[in-house]
């Protein structure tokens, strides 16, 4: 199971990095989304992988680690804010510059 989860995190990172390196804004936004998935998952599993023990007091004998969960919860929401901001930038740039190239001009390398 550990290998499964570690490989998922690795794959999400690899996909995120590759997409972030693309030349157009939209794939970069997708890449950021993938990186968020990867980072959130990594933070989350830093608290260990536990089945069927949600941290609700009084329901179980033992509980999963609530701290990474609290951290990741806000990280997910902030990730949404970041993507929204990035997309607004992308749309604004397309409107003002007439291109969705990350450099703000066509064909630049």
């Amino acid at each position, binding site marked *: *199971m550990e290998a499964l989860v570690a490989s*998922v995190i690795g*794959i999400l990172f690899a996909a995120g990095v590759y997409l972030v390196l693309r030349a157009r804004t939209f794939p970069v936004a997708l890449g950021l989304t993938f990186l968020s998935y990867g980072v959130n998952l990594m933070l989350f599993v830093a608290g260990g992988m536990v089945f069927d023990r949600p*941290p609700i007091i009084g329901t179980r004998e033992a509980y999963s680690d609530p701290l990474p969960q609290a951290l990741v919860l*806000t990280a997910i929401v902030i990730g949404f804010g970041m993507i*929204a901001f990035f997309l*607004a930038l992308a749309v604004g740039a397309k409107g003002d510059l007439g291109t969705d190239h990350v450099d703000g001009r066509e064909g630049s390398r």
Partner: protein
Amino acid sequence: MTFADIALPVIVALPFIGAVLPALAARASANRIAWAAAAVPLAILALLAPMLPEVFAGGAPRISLEWLPALGLNFSLRLDGLAMLFALLIPAIGILIILYARYYLSSDEPMGRFFVALLLFMGAMMGIVLSDNLLLLVIFWELTSLTSFLLIGYWSDRTDSREGARMALAVTGTGGLALLGGAVLLGHIAGTYEISEILAMGDLIRASDLYMPALLLILAGAFTKSAQFPFHFWLPAAMAAPTPVSAYLHSATMVKAGLFLVARLHPALAGTDAWFFLVGGFGLVTLVFGAYAAMFKHDLKGLLAYSTISHLGLIMLLLGMNTELAAVAAVFHIINHATFKASLFMAAGIIDHETGSRDMRRLGGLWRYMPHTAVLAIIAAASMAGVPLLNGFLSKEMFFAEALHVKELGAVGWILPLAATAAGVFSVAYSVRFIHDVFFNGEPKALQKTPHEPPRWMKIPVEILVAICLLVGVLPQLIVRPILDVASGAVLGVPAPDYSLAIWHGFNLPLLMSVVALAGGVAVYMSLQKLYRLHAHETGPWTGHRIFHGLHTGLLRSCAAASAWLANGSLQRYVAVLVGVSLLVGFVAFAQQIDPQQQTLLPVTAPAAAGWLVLVIATFVAVRRHRSRFTALIATGAVGLVVSAIFAYFSAPDLALTQLVVETASVILLVLVLRFLPQMSSLETLLRQRVRDIGLAALSGVGAGGIAWWLLTRPHHSISEYFLANSATLGGGTNVVNVILVDFRGFDTLGEVTVLAVAALGVMAMLGAGSAPREGTTPASRSVMLAKSAQILLPAALLTALYIFLRGHNLPGGGFIAGLVAGASGVLLYVANGIAWSEARLRFAYRSLLTGGLGIAFLTGAGSWLFGAPFLTSWHSHPHIPLLGEIPLATAVAFDVGIFLTVVGTIMLVLSTLGRLSPEGDEPWKPS
């Protein structure tokens, strides 16, 4: 509280505070500005006077105020003999400089600004000499670098002025950094930064392994400040400053700071061979080199600059000799050099002022035009040359005598007296040149002005200084003996040895050396003029100035080349470099951490394997087909759902819910955005670049996966025991995640929702929420089914949100998730019915929703102040209400309401802002 407790801090603070006086008086007459400036050094001297008897009696008044005690930085000041010598010299010569500058600066120059910088500089110098804390000393040291930059660059419209100021700052500032390093090392060895304590630990310090690095760094600071070869070149460049500045900086203050430092730390650092060879060696080379170079300078101030370098080398050499009498001679020469060099600079300034030139090839025969100035300059120059009956002679004799007694050099001990005599010959030669080439040697050539005597008052400071030269020269025992005793006692750390201050010591070797120097100097000068045609001499190509200049431009060019290579305007490249460097750092750091796993692994379950497969396929599709954007978007959404399932699978229901709703909102957002962007990307990156990116991506994946593997296969230590144990009792809720968010770590959450709100407002600011919806924003084919079901769903969704919110403190849910659900259901309405329809019905101002939410969260936090508790302290209870029974109630709920409103406001604001835009020129997007 004694007088010194108040007087010492006031003395240091006075120039900084008093610097406003000339600024305020800037529009007044020149005399008033000068008086305003002179008031400060006069007050300093008045404050010093009552403390002098104590210091002369061997005492050292001290005061220490805590500043940053954790760093060992205290505002400690101490007035011992050495500090007193400088504390008297600095304001005393300062007063003379102010008087002189009053007549030197012309009426159209901003005199107020000049005196402000001068007083600031004076304050920094007073700080250096009075500091009894090493770090405090370094602070004032850097202040002298900064303020001298202002002084040297006073004529800011002149290129040479600016360049000289920059060079001085670069060299002395860099030295200051080295000094800071040395000071920290020294403080580390001694365990304290208090100088008086450090000075008592000489043996411990000299035996330390860190002695050598500390010594090197401290000397780097001292050598740059005191213009020791090879750092000397900034000093001649600083001659572009107005002459009063040169007279002040290069006689008694700036350049003496380095000598002061070496003298100050003498008891702690001196006595070793390293000290002898470093301090003495650099001093010796500087002494001979400066004296030799000075002979060939045609500029009056250039000659004096190199002479200053040479004399600084002489004093440095004396301090490095490791004998008690040499230290006395060093202190004595500090005094003498300050007096004759200040008067010589002033004389040079008068000549420049009244003839319009400082070039000795054009000057000459001024004896007839300005005899009064000539007499003063000749006496001062004679003192510089070491002519008997003047103060320069006495200290030079002591130097010669000490040069004969050095033991460290062994068989080559003769080299020192020889070099000393040679330097003496050169210094006589340039002194003779100063006199002969300016006041005699024919007639002035092609001067702009007819030379004449300066205003009466301009000569007063020179006269005072020359009088001191004479008085000390004739009556040394009476005039300087007392202060010399206490100052050199402070340098040595023990009472000064017995020494004889007299003009005549009988026929001995030092006297012979003096005679050789005097006669040889005259002969060297005559032969230079006659045989070498001195006036035709040109400076060679290898000057320190030009080397520095070359290095400076070379550095700037290579920086420009490096940034042109790195910052070529391609963001893709920046990201690639960023990722590459992070990978490098990460792999290097983690390569040392790899050790075998320590835990038994969990078995793979069927649902997990299935989820893994879905995620891998969806990710592959998203990456492989990313140019077909809608496909990639759908695949990304699928990945998000699997991530949500992973959270649920590993006991994190709150995360699963959050991820689910955020995923929905994100996908809607991305679809909205796709209306404004091309639907397809063309293949435009080169194959080479794609291979690079695939490599970087693969390495990132391996790195992140590796770290995750490492994390997962090691025992897991949590700090969450506290939260689990106290959530119900202290936080009043059983959902620990929610209690952490709204209570234990409430401050974090507050910051996070603020960030969220800022992001939403940023989106609004960028895309302009104020504009009215335009035509074409209604979906082209409005689905009646969707619209109707959305209207029915909305109340249900809002009820769900309310339910999720209310149970959140005890069961999965809470403000974040409820806000996301409510926001998403609002968006559904927009999607189904179009912007115009929804705007007409949902008359919420989302901005107010968002700011109101933040306000509630902040007020809840601040509310605990009313009960005398820290920000965001929560309170909870279980009041019994008729009919309803016992209700759990916590103030954290109000905080959660704030979060809820902020999240709803954020989502609605972002989505409605993006939805309201209409793609210009393009047709609204239709799925094909």
